[in-house]
């Protein structure tokens, strides 16, 4: 619980952060709210030589109307997402899912971009981002690019971000009339989901799951079943198909697969009603 020594760099803006990443390469880690990185450092599971603190870049903390979407600065804290009237009206599932992250002190420190860039397969927010089919904006030394949410999570704690890129904005489609649901199953209020399921139904239905694989994921099997006209119950029955859920003290593969079916059933029931 005592981190190894590291150098600390405070970045004043995104360009400074990207410059620091370019200089230090793989030895550097960006720190936003710190609520994912610092625990890993305390366990010495990660030992970055340089910590680049981007937590004070205030101009990346915003929730703006972007016309057909809502643009959210990557350093917007969970509490701001949770309490945003704009999001509650235009993408209510995101505000709701933000309220499920950790506990109030985590939500006052942690940021949307930090949570997504960490790429934890059990985190809540990727479920909403995937089900909303959001677009993520990354900035690097050669400018910025857009990444679709479904292409963003590439492996366990790995994302499509290059080592010299940082996430700057999350663009969420406006879906004021969509049906939606987030089903999080956990033991204690502040814990990660043992399994979590998000559904957004807006004509077609998107279903995303967390802690059912080595990344947060869209449920291809369920979505295909629904697209083919299956009932919610029949679609839920295939929720675990093709997946390799993680195993830990909270759940083995059999139990997680069962939970996925139950929670997808509940989520579809709520989102499609």
């Amino acid at each position, binding site marked *: *619980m*005592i981190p*190894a*020594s590291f150098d600390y760099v405070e970045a004043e803006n995104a360009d400074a952060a990207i410059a620091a990443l370019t200089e230090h390469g793989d030895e550097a880690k960006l720190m936003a709210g710190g609520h994912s990185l610092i*625990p890993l450092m305390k*366990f*010495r599971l990660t030992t970055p030589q340089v910590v680049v603190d981007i937590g004070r870049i205030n101009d990346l903390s915003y929730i703006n109307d972007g016309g057909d979407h809502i643009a959210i600065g990557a350093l917007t804290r969970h509490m701001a997402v949770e309490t945003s009237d704009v999001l509650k009206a235009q993408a209510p599932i995101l505000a709701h899912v933000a309220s499920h992250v950790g506990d109030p002190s985590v939500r006052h420190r942690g940021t949307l971009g930090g949570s997504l860039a960490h790429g934890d397969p059990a985190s809540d927010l990727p479920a909403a981002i995937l089900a909303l089919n959001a677009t993520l904006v990354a900035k690097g030394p050669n400018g910025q690019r857009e990444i679709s949410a479904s292409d963003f999570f590439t492996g366990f704690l790995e994302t499509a971000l290059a080592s010299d890129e940082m996430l700057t904005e999350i663009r969420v489609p406006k879906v004021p009339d969509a049906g939606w649901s987030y089903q999080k*199953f956990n*033991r*204690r*209020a*502040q*814990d990660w989901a*043992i399994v979590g399921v998000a559904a957004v139904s807006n004509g077609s239905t998107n279903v995303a799951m967390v802690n059912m694989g080595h990344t947060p994921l869209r449920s291809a099997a369920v979505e295909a079943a629904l697209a083919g006209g299956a009932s919610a119950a029949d679609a839920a029955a295939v929720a675990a198909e093709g997946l390799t859920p993680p195993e*830990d*003290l*909270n*759940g*083995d593969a059999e*139990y997680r697969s*069962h*939970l996925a079916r*139950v929670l997808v059933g509940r989520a579809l029931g709520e989102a499609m009603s």
Partner: protein
Amino acid sequence: MTAVMGTPMKRKEDPKLLTGEGKFVDDIHVHGELWMGMVRSTMAHAKINAIDTAEAAGMPGVHSVFTGTQLQEMGLWAAPLPCAWPVTEDMLNPPHFPTASEVVHHVGDIVAVVLADSRYRAADAAEMVVVDYEPLPAVASIEDAIAGEKLAHAGLGTNKAFHWPLIPDPDALEAAFANATHVVKGEFVQQRLIPAAMEPRGVLAIPSPAGGDITLYTSTQVPHILKVMLAATTGISESKLRIIAPAVGGGFGAKLNVNPDESLAVTLANKLSRPVRWTETRSEAAFSTHQGRGQKQTMEIAADENGKILGVRAHIDADMGAYMMLITPGVPLLGSFLYTGVYDVPAFGFTCDGYFTNLTPTDAYRGAGRPEASYAIERVMDMLSYEVGVTPEEIRRRNYLAGGGEFENLEVASTLVFDSGNYSPNLDMALDMAKMAELRAEQQRRRDAGDKKQLGIGLCTYVEICGLAPSRALAGLNYGAGGWEAGTVRLLPTGKVEVVSGSTPHGQGHETAWSQIVADKLGIDPADITVLHSDTAISPLGMDTYGSRSLAVGGVAIAMACDKVIDKARLIAAHQLEANPDDLDFEAGRFGVKGSPDKGLLIQEIAFGAFTAHNLPDGMEPNLNEQMIFDPPNFAFPFGTHVAVVEVDEDTGETELIDYIAIDDCGNHVNPLIIEGQVHGGIVQGVAQALYEGAEYDAEGNCKNPSLMDYLVPSPTEVPNIQTGYTYTPSTSNPLGVKGVGEAGTIGSAAAVINAICDALRPHGITDMSMPATPMKVWKAINSADSTANNGGGQ
């Protein structure tokens, strides 16, 4: 002045703690201090071939690095760390020194110590110490230990440390089972629990260069016991050791020990003439602090056709862990006398086998033996109720001691004498408050409707042992100390009062409760009373705080010291008022002459007179300063009824505790607010064992969940509002009529919750559920029971 005893006075301790002014060990710093960094074994059982400390020793800020062998050769210790409770004459107790030198016996055993000028540098250097281990077969569970194919301590030739029987009448016991209509058997596991006090343990040893005295600040429940034991095991004179327990953030038994780090800090500070400190990290605590429970129980009950108990037979296999700590072997025995519960049991037998494993040692944890006992008897009582076909409450009524009515000083089958009890009114109050009839109707409605959320109602009617302990009774158990407690009450010249407490608080609220006792006794405002404690230089005599003993022994000692003060003050008052002592009334802090309302003296005035000593009776010692050392004539036996109401989601296996009713009887109350807090906290700790917590180990003896991310200590959001109520049956074991309530909640709650889950799952034919009842476990039980039933196996 109106009485303050029995009123919910707010705690004197809280403003300081709530505003961050409490000083814990880790808040105290001195110039020149060195941090210890422990190099801990990563293997459960291994031979140490070599340790390379060269790189660590050369790192910046590192003062020195010592291997276990080097520390042994330095002659720091006169004897191994102590076990004060060798439960049998032939108990095996392999030597346990603060550091291992040739063989490690559990993950976390200390193999080397780094001393550095900061905590970070100590941690960095400890990581660079290279240890060459040669793995030995690890006894990674009690099952491994019983099987005996692998040995936790190769030199012992066996894993069994002791066999302890308590069978008052073997023939009667055999006859009871032979003649029974119903015999019910339950096999239960009391999983290992990580205590996880809010403040981790820590030490700071400060040597004084001139005198050779050493002050040890440590997060302990037992400064007095620690002082004696450290003196005995380090060879440092007792009079040169001063132990201070500053603010201590919870203990729950886990700070009731003599730990390697405490001995290392004292001996290294002494050797190096430098202050030495250490604070355990949260994950380290799973290895550096003892764990609780760790038992396998076999419980059998024999009853006649009406469910009247004929006999109870219990056997425990207890996991000692790798070493005998201070009272490791005694913990299961503390429960042995309670396997008959609140019931009239004609024949009783208890046996316990203690086994070594290559796991973190076990020792006291909230309830220490009694939650295990109450769990076993209350689980089989529910099983018996189903077997006989009556409700859980009815089977209990049929078997209550004294028919459920009032009793005093009643000898029970386990040979103890229960001080007082009155069980039926307590049960009635709980059933009323729970609205049991409505709950049963709702349960039936959900069963009939095939509801996915089934309701379960669980009862636990517990009894426990507090007021530890009559010293002679401890002698009978081969415990290496007495059970008395000391208290001093001293009136200062200004009329204020100093109370010196031998028992040592770590969250219990002694300063408040003792003030209330003294305020009422002496008629002095509680604000004028200061309670001194937790420093062996200020309070040299004490037996400390554990086993819900403080009030029933230490609080009583203080009340009796007040009586001594009053007796002496009466003589002074009589002398100065020129009255006969018998003609004085003492009321609200004033001695008045009967029949002459104007003639009197306040106790503060007498205190000043006793201080100046200008006008005292011939031969009387000056000052009002009285000490009482109280050795109780008997234990105290609190009891109560807990009702847990759960909803089990059959789709996910999740158990939600939707209501909890606790009716406790701890005799007379000193501070109902403190009692309420103890009941709440205790219940949550039992609920934690029932639903959330358990240290899990792999086959090599590695703990799989040492961090609070994986070891699920429940938070307030997981606990329902608790409804409490009380009955009042005064103890006959002390003049205050008090019993103790620090562990009652834990003793009552685990069985209530598991009984409730089993009640909910009854339609599936499920009769038992092991702890913790995780959603996965419950779902798998339902799934497997249903598929068996569908295959015709349920017929």
